[in-house]
């Protein structure tokens, strides 16, 4: 059964690659992205890692092909933006570093005029690199956690501080992009989706990284105190922006408490 599934996934990949030889239309690209995402979720849920690798390769091929379409200057800019949105999403899901380039190329086409014609696609292109980066950071968190739990190479203070800062930067970036998306005509599901993911990073990724600083550097360390202070500032900002405990359950019910010495 596993072999059969693996063959199916390889075929899926081949189909995507072969499709690359002919022009990929937007409808087809959207459909393939959805299909491959479903295949990837199934592979992850059933812990079929080799299938996940095959699907990732197919996603990567789809990303390249959609990006090639996006680069076609004979096409209207709004259409090119849509292709880049597909390219960036597929590259993100493939774990392919080209996600940053594809999202940047697509977003560079988002002028005020085109943003108003494809608000969802432009909004997605602006946040996809941050979300892809969070996926990569998740792997680093899990690795640091494993090593902190015992073993010969525990994480260093510098390493966990860097991890915390990287995660915080992603939240800062997402919060900064939130405003223009909220003002646009993009469907509210987009901003809800971004907020939900930002809440998860604040309540899951960031505290884990801060906990690692505490565990590695100690409660009295400057690194821990700085992390507490940064966390506090983020919480204040998010509360101001309207984040509730429903979206970010780690937020306190009332005002966040300012840590001692935090400016």
């Amino acid at each position, binding site marked *: 059964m596993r072999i059969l599934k693996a063959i199916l996934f390889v075929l899926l990949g081949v189909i995507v690659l072969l499709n690359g030889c002919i022009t990929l239309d937007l409808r087809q690209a959207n459909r393939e992205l959805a299909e491959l995402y479903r295949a990837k979720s199934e592979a992850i849920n059933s812990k079929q890692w080799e299938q996940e690798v095959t699907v990732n390769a197919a996603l990567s091929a789809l990303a390249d092909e959609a990006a090639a379409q996006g680069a076609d200057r004979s096409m209207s800019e709004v259409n090119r933006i849509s292709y880049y949105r597909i390219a960036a999403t597929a590259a993100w899901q493939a774990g392919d570093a080209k996600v940053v380039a594809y999202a940047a190329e697509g977003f560079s086409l988002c002028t005020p005029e085109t943003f108003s014609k494809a608000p969802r696609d432009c909004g997605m292109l602006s946040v996809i690199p941050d979300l892809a980066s969070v996926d990569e950071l998740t792997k680093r968190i899990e690795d640091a956690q494993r090593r902190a739990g015992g073993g010969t190479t525990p994480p260093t203070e510098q390493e966990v501080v860097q991890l915390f800062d990287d995660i915080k930067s992603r939240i800062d970036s997402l919060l900064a992009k939130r405003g223009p998306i909220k003002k646009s005509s993009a469907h509210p599901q987009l901003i809800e989706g971004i907020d939900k993911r930002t809440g998860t990073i604040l309540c899951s990724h960031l505290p884990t990284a801060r906990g690692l600083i505490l565990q590695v550097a100690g409660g009295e360390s400057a690194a821990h105190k700085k992390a*507490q202070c940064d966390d506090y500032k983020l919480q204040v900002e998010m509360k101001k922006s309207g984040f509730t405990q429903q979206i970010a359950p780690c937020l306190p019910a009332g005002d966040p408490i300012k840590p001692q010495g935090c400016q």
Partner: protein
Amino acid sequence: MDPTLILFGIQAVIRLGKIGKDASEQYVRDAEALFPDIRKPEFNRRGYVNGFFGNANYEHFVRGVDAPFKEFWGSNGVKNDLNSIDTLFAAAVQIKSEEGVDMNKWLADSQVIAGATLIQQWDPIKPAPMSPFARVVLAAGDIALEYLAINPGLLGVDGNGQKLIGAFAKNLGDLLPDDGNFGNNHKFGERLLGIFLRAGLETINSNPRWVVSEEHVQKLISASVQPIVKALPVNITEQIKYREVTDALIGPAASAAMQTLANHPDAFFGDDFRAETAIGALTQALLGQAANTGLNSQFTKDGLLDLYKAALGVAAEKPHLFLKDNGDPQDHLAKDLIANLASALMQSPPPFNGSVGVQLAAAALEAVSANAHRFARRDKPWEQTASDLVGTVTEQLSKAFKDNKGIENAFSKAHLIELGRIMFNHIGSTPEMIVGPEDALAQLVGTVAQAMAKDDKLLLDSGDWLEIAKVAAQEAAANPARLFKLDPNNQSQTLAAQVIQAILKSAGDILSQKDLKGKTVLFGKTLREAIIIVLGATSRNPGAAEKNLLSIELLIAGLNELVAKNSDKFGDKEWLHLFQVLLTSVLEGRGLDKLTVESANKLLKEKVI
């Protein structure tokens, strides 16, 4: 909403599509986009506790003179022992619970493998470049353009495609409100109509000779779509489930319905719209059943769709079976038909719970519907009869397969279905067998099945059993009360079963005699003919057969021995002739002399004369 306007809009889109695809491109661009979720770190209790109490908001619970949990906390966070970690984890959950946050649930949800959101392009309450009217028109235009690329002649004046789009526009016009305020139900209906339009265009492509009748297509679509839209549940959870099964089934169902329309031109002609009504009721029944059982059971999507397809033929050819006198669908009939058949098959053991079962159900439906006039005004509704037939056949055959694995392996799927078809066709023409006081069908199928179970030496193959089943069914249909009546002395067996088993026993016994084993002729075709002879003779005189069962057994044993010992003189033809002659004597109560070469030759010579 005015259907003429919709039709005009769609035609405009198609014309526009020939020049440039701007409008349809926007439609495609604005389709829902996948927005994947992010990965969450694997949950680690110690890490969580450190993150939680290391936050300034909750640090006072573990640090400071009055901190209630200070003994579990050290200089590097929670003390690294299970007790401290568990205690502080429970405390964190409690603290958040007092704030009204169910942290346990959030943590559990956050460990679920990433899902995705589908996001529309436009905010529904902010001005978007496309009006709802333009959107529905573009949806249809986009589908038509897709097919126009394959078949450019599709939309010629009065062409099939044109008629199909006309039927689509009329349905859309009926469905959509004039004020343009489309609710959830309208969007759902609009999507379903799009699926039917696509199915129709597909059918035209694969059946170029199909002469589309706009009125009939229109009626088929409305009869199918309107009840589905009306049945959309209000409750969110139920609605999600209903939408899921609709998404999974409506495409293939619409294709099958359109194909039925194309395959049965006589049924969809003139002013008679009964077939469309019947198909609509069936389509709704299919979705209702799928919503009830879900699509993840053993009897999955394919099984239900195949049942639906089998029933479509009946609906097209005999729509009155599904309708009341006034032409409305009979309450619950289509629903009961699909539900009962699905239930019978879901309860059946392998191989009857898959494609074999579905094809048996199709054969049962065919047989019952072809003979529906014979079942008229009976107490039992015909749809119940059809599912009972399937249940009985699968139950009896399953028993036989359980007792005799060898015979199961001897039957191909095609032969199993053929076996069922033989039974159904003969029984269908004799409704007394099914609706009478005794379950004659169970007795007939049971007889053949029990006999099959006893053939542990596999003396007969599946082809032989099919021939025997045909004769048994014919005899049963002709004289149900004789051969297939349960023996008062042995309530588990019919007389026919006992007779067949007696023959099988005698045929098998000789195989245990080393010197005669290779010389017996009583297997395969000869054995099959012997059983057929006995069934015919017994049916004519069941009392005598019952009384002389042992004599029949002894006759076969004697004949076997004679032919095997004199294989140079006698073969299968002689065996069968002698058997026929001597069986008549046995059933007439005449004693048999010892069989010798001479007496056998004498009987054979009488045949020649």
